[in-house]
């Protein structure tokens, strides 16, 4: 079996002490920041990215991946104990998780989230390992026209499945694509939109974009809200283990959440957030067994299923990135940036040219999930302590990490001016109700899209119909159009709005 020899190679890489250490560091940092409300995984990864510059590429990616799924675990802890989602993907967990905590069942809720996530993470990792090679084969058949169409599908998918206004989300993508084009054009050597500023000829750094728009934007908007009375349910975490009855309800929910999350994670624009929402909606549709607590009042299924789903989705969203080189969501867009910094061009060739990196990363995901169960269940007390630190101590620290992160990217003060400007822009986006995630996706894909469009049209001598006449490319575009039509249908439209508004 190829799968086993590949995984063996991967575990060989991941089990070296140095990589184990980085996985652990990533998981701890991820949980740490996941537990802190108000700073999302995108800002977290952007913030900590510079810390990985000096590491070898495998270790750097292992650590970043650890941060990502660590944030997923950490986010559920705050959701359950404080009724504040640490991450957007834990929003639905607050509904039943917090109710369980109020009834003194915080322990079982945390255990359901942790164990469900671990199971889902393991399954997600296996799916990733099994499906990556055949998809990579497919990717080698792609020409520039197919890549261009795939990116269109990916970008459309990203906005269709996201919340909020469709039109504005598409506009944000286009804005992102344009910002991605700033800097020297690779073909002609012309410095575009650089206003004769030498630093801008290299393009806008994506760490500055992510940090300014996500990091500072989020901090400022948090500070502008009055400090909420956080009711911390810490004293009540005792008896971690769910009862036999709990397990009976939990198990099918975990399985359903995992299946749904794995599928949705692969889709463009999918990933953890959508998976969690969909899983909760599905659970609510399934009839309550006699003696079960209704949803919204502390049903354990309402915790187990979305938490499994978001973790499965977090794993499988690596599939499009690692096989096609196309990030399906903003976090994966950051991973593209991270790989580029380490001189790895994401795409199908990674698996053949860097098998240690590819399989090492996959194997480390499973190890990371295992570490997280240990970090989050027996050591839960440590994180709870952290939650009692007032925000006025936390946010200067976050601002500091952002600033160090920005500065250490290039050791150039210009980036500091840039990030201040982008921070203002990020806050403006929040005020105007413009979701920034699609912008980041567009920003990463901008140069790739231009390059593929240019090549496709060069090969076809300027004939645009090539995108429709090549069967694979035509099919991808048709799928994109179909997606748009489906979302614009009035009946689906109202459902979509409903799906993202949970009481």
């Amino acid at each position, binding site marked *: 079996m190829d799968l086993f020899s590949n995984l063996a190679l991967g575990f060989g890489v991941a089990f070296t002490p140095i990589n184990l250490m980085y996985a652990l560091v990533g998981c701890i940092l991820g949980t740490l920041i996941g537990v802190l409300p108000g700073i999302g995984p995108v800002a977290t990864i952007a913030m900590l990215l510079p810390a990985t510059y000096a590491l070898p590429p495998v270790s750097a990616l292992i650590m970043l991946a650890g941060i990502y799924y660590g944030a997923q675990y950490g986010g559920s802890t705050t959701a359950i104990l404080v009724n504040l989602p640490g991450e957007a993907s834990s929003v639905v967990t607050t509904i039943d998780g917090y109710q369980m905590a109020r009834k003194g069942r915080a322990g079982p809720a945390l255990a359901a989230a942790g164990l469900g996530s671990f199971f889902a993470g393991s399954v997600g990792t296996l799916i990733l390992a099994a499906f990556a090679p055949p998809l990579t084969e497919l990717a080698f058949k792609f020409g520039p026209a197919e890549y261009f169409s795939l990116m269109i599908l990916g970008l459309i998918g990203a906005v269709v499945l996201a919340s909020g206004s469709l039109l504005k989300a598409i*506009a944000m993508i286009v804005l992102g694509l344009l910002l991605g084009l700033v800097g020297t054009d690779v073909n002609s050597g012309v410095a575009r939109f650089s206003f004769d500023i030498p630093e801008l000829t290299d393009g806008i750094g994506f760490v500055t974009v992510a940090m300014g728009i996500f990091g500072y934007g989020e*901090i400022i908007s948090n500070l*502008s809200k009055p400090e909420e009375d956080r009711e911390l349910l810490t004293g009540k975490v005792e008896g971690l283990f769910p009862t036999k009855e709990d397990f009976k309800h939990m198990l099918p929910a975990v399985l359903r959440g995992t299946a749904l999350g794995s599928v949705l994670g692969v889709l463009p624009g999918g990933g953890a957030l959508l998976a969690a929402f969909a899983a909760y909606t599905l659970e609510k549709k399934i009839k309550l067994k006699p003696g079960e607590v209704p949803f919204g009042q502390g049903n354990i299924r309402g915790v187990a299923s979305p938490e499994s789903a978001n973790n499965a989705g977090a794993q499988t969203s690596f599939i499009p990135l690692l096989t096609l080189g196309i990030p399906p969501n903003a976090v994966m867009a950051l991973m593209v940036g991270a790989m580029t910094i380490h001189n790895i061009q994401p795409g199908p060739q990674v698996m053949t040219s860097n098998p240690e990196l590819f399989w090492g990363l996959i194997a480390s995901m499973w190890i990371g999930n295992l570490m997280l169960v240990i970090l989050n269940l027996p050591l839960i007390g440590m994180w709870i302590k952290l939650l009692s630190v007032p925000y006025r101590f936390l946010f200067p620290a976050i601002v500091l990490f952002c600033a160090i992160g920005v*500065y*250490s990217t290039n050791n150039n003060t210009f980036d500091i001016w840039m990030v*201040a400007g982008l*921070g203002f822009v990020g806050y403006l986006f929040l005020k105007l109700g413009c979701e920034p995630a699609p912008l980041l996706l567009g920003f990463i894909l901008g140069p790739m899209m231009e390059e593929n469009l240019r090549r496709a049209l060069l090969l076809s001598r300027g004939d645009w119909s090539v995108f429709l006449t090549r069967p694979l490319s035509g099919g991808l575009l048709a799928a994109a159009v179909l997606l748009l039509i489906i979302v614009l249908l009035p009946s689906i439209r109202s459902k979509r709005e409903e799906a993202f508004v949970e009481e």
Partner: protein
Amino acid sequence: MIKSQKDFYSGLMFTLVGAGFALGAGNYSVGTGARMGPGYFPMMLGIVLAVLGAFVTFYSLVEHTEDGDKVGAFAWRPLGYVLGANLAFGVLLGGLPSIGLPAMGLIAAIFALTIIASKAGDSFVWKDVILLALVLSAGSYVAFILLLKLQMPVWPTFITG
């Protein structure tokens, strides 16, 4: 009559920025589909963005919303202090030759950042802020300088020479 203030202004923003990019792209050679110049793709996208913005603005005038989707007041205080803290950090850390300011190093920059950023919060207690700055300085020194070996000045140049 504006029915959604947020959409109205974001539409305007998209249109202006899109038009700006499209006009700017005109300065570079545009070329044809088969031989795309550096201006081709940005011009195309700029026009698309401007049109999208126009649609957003249009809908904000016709589509009814419950509360008018007000943009609301800007939180200038946190905005100014958080961004100001970041600027102070950058200037102190690396120095600013254009105004003759030497590099003051990481520790001074952390103190400035912590003090300025803390002003953005609801309460400001000097003792706590200084304590926090001390903890952050020590932590950053260990994490970033000793462990991660980031290249940055730690102390002011006039002390280290």
